C-alpha cells in the first residue's frame, strides 16, 4: 500500500479509494466506528455525531470527512469513547426508550451501541416527552417515542421512494418527526411497507404490524455478537448497487 492512499486509524493503516470518507474506508477495512445516522446506501448526514473521531488532533465526523493520505485518526480512545457515551446518554433521556416493550429490541442500533460502549446509567434526568403513537396505517405503526432524528426515513422516502412522506418540524429540543399529510396521519399518505423508508429506521419508530417479537431472544440481530462484530453489514456499497 503506497503512502498516498492510506491513513492511520488508531495505529492501524487504513487504505482508501478516492472519494471515500474516513468512515467508509474504516468500515471497508473491517474497523467499526459507532454511528446512527450513517447508512451505507445514503449520503452522509453528519447529525448524530456518534462517529466523531479526532483527525490530526481536531474533532470531526468521520462519515462526512473525506479520507486523505497521511491523516492521523483517533477513534477508540478513552476520551472519544467517553464523548460517544455522553451522546448516547443524551439520546436515551430525550426520548422514551423503554426496551422491555419494544419490538425492535435486539435489532436496535441505539441499544446495541449502548451495549457496545457500556452505557449502564442514564446519567441525566429523563425528560419523558409526550409523543403519541400513530397506528392509523393498516400495515405500519409509528412510535415517535423512540425517534432520534437521524432523518434516514426522510432521506429514504425522498431519495429512493420519491414520496416525501416524512419531515422534521420544530427547532431545538422541540424538533420532531412529522408525517406529510394534512391530518398528520400516516394512513393519509401513499406510504407502503415495501418502501425503502420502512426499512431504514435504526431504532424502533417504523414498525411492521403483526410481526412483533417474531424472533426469540437469543436469536436476534445483536444477541450473539456485539454490533462492532457486524462491521461487514455496514460496508460501503457502490453507487450502482444502491436499490
Amino acid at each position: 500500500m503506497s503512502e498516498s492512499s492510506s491513513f492511520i486509524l488508531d495505529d492501524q493503516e487504513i487504505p482508501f479509494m478516492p472519494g471515500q470518507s474516513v468512515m467508509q474506508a474504516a468500515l471497508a477495512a473491517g474497523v467499526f466506528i459507532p454511528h446512527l445516522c450513517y447508512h451505507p446506501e445514503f449520503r452522509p448526514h453528519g447529525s448524530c455525531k456518534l462517529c466523531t473521531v479526532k483527525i490530526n488532533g481536531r474533532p470531526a465526523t468521520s462519515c462526512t470527512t473525506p479520507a486523505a493520505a497521511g491523516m492521523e485518526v483517533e477513534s477508540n480512545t478513552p476520551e472519544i469513547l467517553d464523548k460517544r457515551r455522553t451522546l448516547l446518554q443524551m439520546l436515551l433521556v430525550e426520548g422514551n426508550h423503554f426496551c422491555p416493550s419494544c419490538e425492535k429490541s435486539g435489532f436496535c442500533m441505539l441499544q446495541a451501541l449502548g451495549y457496545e460502549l457500556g452505557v449502564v446509567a442514564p446519567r441525566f434526568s429523563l425528560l419523558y416527552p409526550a409523543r403519541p403513537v400513530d397506528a392509523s396505517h393498516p400495515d405500519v405503526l409509528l412510535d415517535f417515542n423512540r425517534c432520534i432524528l437521524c432523518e434516514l426515513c426522510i432521506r429514504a422516502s425522498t431519495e429512493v421512494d420519491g414520496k416525501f412522506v416524512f419531515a422534521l418540524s420544530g427547532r431545538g429540543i422541540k424538533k420532531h418527526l412529522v408525517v406529510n399529510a394534512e391530518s398528520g396521519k400516516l394512513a393519509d399518505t401513499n406510504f407502503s411497507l415495501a418502501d425503502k423508508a420502512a426499512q431504514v429506521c435504526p431504532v424502533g419508530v417504523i414498525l411492521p404490524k403483526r410481526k412483533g417479537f417474531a424472533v426469540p431472544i437469543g436469536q436476534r440481530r445483536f444477541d450473539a455478537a456485539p454490533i462492532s462484530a457486524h462491521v461487514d453489514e455496514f460496508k460501503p456499497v457502490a453507487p450502482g448497487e444502491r436499490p
Partner: protein
Amino acid sequence: MNAPRKLKVATTSLAGCFGCHMSFLDIDERLLDLLEFIEFDRTPLTDIKHCGPCDIGIIEGGVCNAENVCVLREFRANCKILIALGACAVNGGLPAQRNHLDLRDILAAVYVTEEGLVPGTQIPNDPELPLPLNQVHPIHEVVNIDYFLPGCPPSGDAIWKFLTDLLTGHTPRLGHGLIRYD
C-alpha cells in the same frame, strides 16, 4: 486469625415488580457461596423492616410515591455503596410509562370512570396510603447512586458477575450478553 468481616447487604423493591429480586435468587446455589462473604440486613428475604449501617444497598424499582422516597433516603443514609438494580431503578421502567399522563386522570380512570365499579367507589385517600408522586423517577434523580445494573430483569448471571466483581474489589464490567436493557 479471624475470618474477614462479612459485608452487610440490604435490598428493597420500590416501584418494581420484585422480578429483579427473583432474578437475584436465580443465581441459585451460588447464593450459598455469596453468603460466605455477605450477610443480609434489611431485605424481603429477612423481613427486617429498617436498614442499619450496611456496606452495600441494592435498590429495585423507581420512585413512584412518598414512601419510596423515605425508603430510598434511608438506604442512602445507611449504605456505603448504593446500586440501582434493573430497568425501573435505572430509568423508571414500566411504572414510568404513566409519566406523560395526568395522575388525577389515571386515578379517576381506575377508581371513578372504569366500568363495573361498585357504586360509590372513590379514589382511595386513607392516610395510611403513601401519596403517589406526579411522575415516576429513576432513583438517581433522588439520591446519589454508585453503580447501575440495567435489565428487565438483569439475569442471574449478570447479577452474579456484578456482585463478584464488586466483592473482589473490581469495577463491575458486564460485557456483551450480560449488559441488557430488556
